[in-house]
């Protein structure tokens, strides 16, 4: 590490008290450091007053990256958690891209920690080495004698806070390959006592979500959309809206997808929108009902599948089933589901002084809206700025391949004179009725067993609406016609199943389909785990022992077996109190391994009550154990709440549900305490936001079967298919 004289001369004019050290990466990936951040985008910023800021490239909607990425930097520099704060990164796909997505910035697929772990540790380690080098220079001692603990450089008989060395450190070159700390010395990573950095602001009302932004002179816009997807606005009558105090104007969106209604306040916009009459051209609109969608899916399951997913020998599977001692056959149907994040969708667009556009948004996939806005406004990418704010949940909804609501806001802005910022606000009704949905899917499975109850063949047909086809993600995630998100968790099951065949048929999209917390695993885990339970029952074997007998021969299998053993041990598997029944499920998703045991009382007929849930997770090295536990708790609640009673249905193409009373969220009394156990691991960290969800519903279904004369709930939601909840 040497003094960089050009940077040093730049810093000469700067008062040391105002100096800042930025450490980040250049577009080629090389580490960079400087006293100003114009040359690159930083991951960490250290001010001479000792304030350390992690620049977080992922959106925070509860899953914990603000705390997690700050933890990595604090650990490597040598800070306490109360010595670091965070800010959200601007949109820049070259520097802040998600390594799992390629040259694309975004949060999804439970990758925030997995793809940031080395990157943010490295940035923190670079900061540590530079601060120590600066201190060594200042004190005239060898850097090897110095270390940083709790924000203080100590060694060679001296000690001083890191802020004192920022000005000198900012003149040094970043080390090319800083040495990361030995995991054995970690104080923060893996520490279960580390608290979230965003708890206090979310408990006192000061946290700023995008919905809380109020720019001077802003207009609130709400969109009147067609009842049926694909309807086009051809005109409107706003004479009644003129009576609403605060109403400004209405305009047909340039793509005719709706009419934007503008007002001085949210309440005025809501009232005015109700008062605007729109003429619709519904000639190309969706008119099907959910019953027709279901019929199409069920018919597809009875026909030959379009795709042989694993290119396996279908005839051989059939022959094995023909020769089986018994064949279990079960069909499943999964309805459309809405994401319904607590904060309704919204974002604000304004013109900047330099002729650009600024988007304020709880932005999950910044590169998507960044490119879309660049096209709509015909501006170069660098003229579009995205300010990422806190988001009130997403579960996939804020990450649409077509940047749906940001485009809507841009179109609502582009038709104005652009002198006033436009805040687009969705209502809960908009969210449930005009949304993007977890696609409807059906499965039909035949499992052949021999006389000993061992699986000899497995014929598994899947039919449903592709999420990825027709989107920018198709080239990455659709191969030989197979949308991986339609079959993940089934066709790639770690169970060592002999004679398996997986077929897939795409059905027509009746709505906009979208990933929903855990994507394909939302339905595949349910089917795999209910079928394994049925097979164990038919074999007369314990469901845990039966599963374990198919989890051998590799690391995936060992880790699944590990969580299965841990969860069942902690749950007291097989020793539930009288009147209680247990169900288990185990599943790998997003690189993580999760087993869950649900214990219920009652029965499907008399009313099921969830009494206890036990979870074991192996997500590699646990960075923030308490955040991991919280994500398991939340993921389980999300999975269970929806299978209990939620579905989106269509009548004549229009969504039947309006608001939470028709799409009842999981409530506090619905769910028992969840006991989460984390498997210690030195493997690279993997996902936690989604993997808790997939096993929850099948574990509940298996518990209900155990409590209810083997009733297998094969169509969802449960409360419409024979299960009462107490």
């Amino acid at each position, binding site marked *: 590490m040497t003094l960089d004289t050009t940077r040093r001369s730049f810093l000469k004019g700067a008062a040391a008290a105002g100096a800042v050290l930025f450490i980040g990466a250049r577009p080629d990936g090389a580490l960079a450091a400087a006293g100003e951040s114009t040359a690159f985008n930083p991951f960490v910023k250290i001010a001479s007053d000792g304030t350390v800021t992690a620049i977080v490239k992922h959106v925070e909607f509860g899953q914990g990256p603000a705390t997690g990425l700050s933890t990595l930097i604090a650990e490597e520099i040598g800070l306490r958690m109360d010595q670091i704060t965070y800010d959200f990164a601007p949109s820049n796909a070259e520097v802040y891209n998600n390594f799992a997505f390629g040259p694309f910035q975004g949060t999804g697929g439970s990758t925030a920690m997995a793809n940031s772990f080395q990157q943010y540790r490295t940035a923190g380690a670079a900061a540590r080495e530079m601060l120590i080098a600066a201190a060594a220079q200042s004190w005239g001692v060898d850097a090897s004698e110095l270390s940083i603990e709790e924000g203080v450089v100590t060694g060679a008989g001296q000690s001083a806070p890191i802020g004192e060395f920022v000005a000198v450190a900012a003149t040094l070159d970043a080390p090319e390959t800083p040495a990361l700390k030995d995991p054995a010395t970690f104080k923060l990573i893996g520490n279960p006592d580390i608290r979230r950095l965003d708890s206090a602001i979310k408990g006192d*009302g000061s946290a700023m*979500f995008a*919905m809380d932004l109020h720019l001077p002179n802003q207009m609130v816009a709400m969109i009147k959309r067609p009842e049926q997807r694909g309807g086009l606005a051809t005109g409107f009558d706003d004479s009644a809206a003129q009576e609403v105090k605060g109403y400004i104007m209405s305009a047909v969106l340039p793509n005719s997808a709706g009419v934007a209604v503008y007002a001085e*306040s*949210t*309440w005025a916009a809501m009232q005015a929108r109700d008062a605007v009459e729109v003429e619709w051209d519904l000639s190309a609109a969706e008119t099907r009902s959910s019953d027709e969608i279901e019929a199409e899916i069920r018919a597809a399951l009875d026909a030959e599948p379009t795709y042989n997913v694993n290119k396996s020998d279908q005839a051989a599977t059939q022959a094995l089933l023909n020769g089986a001692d018994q064949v279990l056959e079960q069909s499943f149907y999964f309805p459309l589901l809405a994401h319904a994040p607590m904060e309704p969708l919204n974002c604000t667009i304004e013109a900047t002084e330099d002729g650009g556009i600024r988007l304020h948004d709880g932005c999950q996939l910044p590169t998507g809206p960044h490119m879309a806005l660049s096209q709509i406004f015909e501006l170069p990418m660098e003229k579009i700025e995205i300010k990422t704010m806190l988001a009130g949940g997403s579960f996939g909804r804020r990450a649409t391949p077509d940047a749906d609501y940001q485009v809507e806001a841009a179109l609502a802005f582009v038709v104005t004179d652009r002198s006033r910022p436009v805040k687009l606000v969705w209502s809960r009704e908009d969210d449930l009725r005009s949304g993007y949905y977890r696609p409807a899917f059906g499965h039909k499975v035949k499992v052949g067993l021999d006389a000993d109850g061992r699986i000899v063949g497995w014929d598994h047909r899947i039919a449903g609406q592709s999420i990825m086809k027709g989107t920018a993600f198709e080239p990455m995630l659709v191969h030989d016609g197979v949308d991986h998100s339609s079959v993940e968790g089934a066709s790639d099951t770690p169970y060592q199943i002999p004679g398996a065949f997986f077929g897939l048929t795409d059905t027509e999209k009746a709505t906009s389909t979208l990933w929903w917390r855990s994507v394909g695993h939302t339905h595949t885990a349910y089917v795999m785990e209910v079928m394994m339970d049925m097979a164990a029952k038919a074999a007369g074997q314990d469901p845990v022992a039966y599963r374990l007998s198919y989890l051998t021969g590799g690391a995936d299998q060992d880790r699944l077996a590990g969580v299965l053993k841990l969860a069942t041990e902690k749950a007291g598997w097989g020793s539930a109190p009288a009147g209680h029944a247990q169900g288990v499920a185990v599943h790998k998703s997003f690189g993580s391994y999760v087993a869950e045991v649900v214990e219920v009382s009652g029965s499907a007929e008399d009313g099921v009550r969830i009494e206890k849930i036990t979870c074991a997770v192996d997500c590699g090295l646990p960075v923030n154990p308490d955040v991991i536990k919280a994500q398991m708790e*939340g993921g389980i609640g999300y999975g269970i709440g929806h299978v209990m009673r939620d579905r989106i249905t269509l009548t004549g193409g229009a969504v039947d549900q309006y608001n939470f009373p028709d799409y009842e969220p999981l409530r*506090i*009394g619905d769910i028992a*305490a969840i006991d989460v156990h984390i498997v210690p691991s030195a493997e690279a960290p993997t996902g936690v936001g989604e993997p808790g969800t997939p096993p929850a519903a099948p574990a509940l279904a298996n518990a209900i079967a155990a409590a209810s004369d083997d009733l297998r709930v094969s169509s969802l939601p449960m409360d419409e298919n024979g299960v009462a909840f107490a």
Partner: protein
Amino acid sequence: MAFSLKLNGTSHEVDVEPGTPLLWVIRDELKMTGTKFGCGVASCGACTVHLDGQPVRSCQTYVEDVEGAEITTIEAMSETEIGAAVQQAWVELDVVQCGYCQSGQIMSAVGLLSENPKPTAEDIDAYMYGNACRCATYQRIRAGIQRAAEILEA
């Protein structure tokens, strides 16, 4: 039309139409954004505020009906003994995830503890039923309320 409201101990004059929900007076007119919009139909509880100490859904409470009442929002909770205890418990247990519903959760939790200083899990489930959390932080909400009760008892 002018209305006079007493919010967090301060009087405010607002010029809004009769029938305007208190939620939008607080958020859009007074620019206090801790009180959240979640559903607009009193089904999620994100908009919960206190009216003379009682939790109400501000999205279904109208401006003309609250003149003369003491309105309290999340922004003033730290100034009350119970509110401060709940907020402390929330931070100790990291109850929040996305956090969007938590102002409403805390306002309801304070309402519960004001009536019932030592609520059982069943009491909590019954009282908090109307406050939805899509992140499903429910077991921590339950634990947070019981922890706040401990803090208050100490």
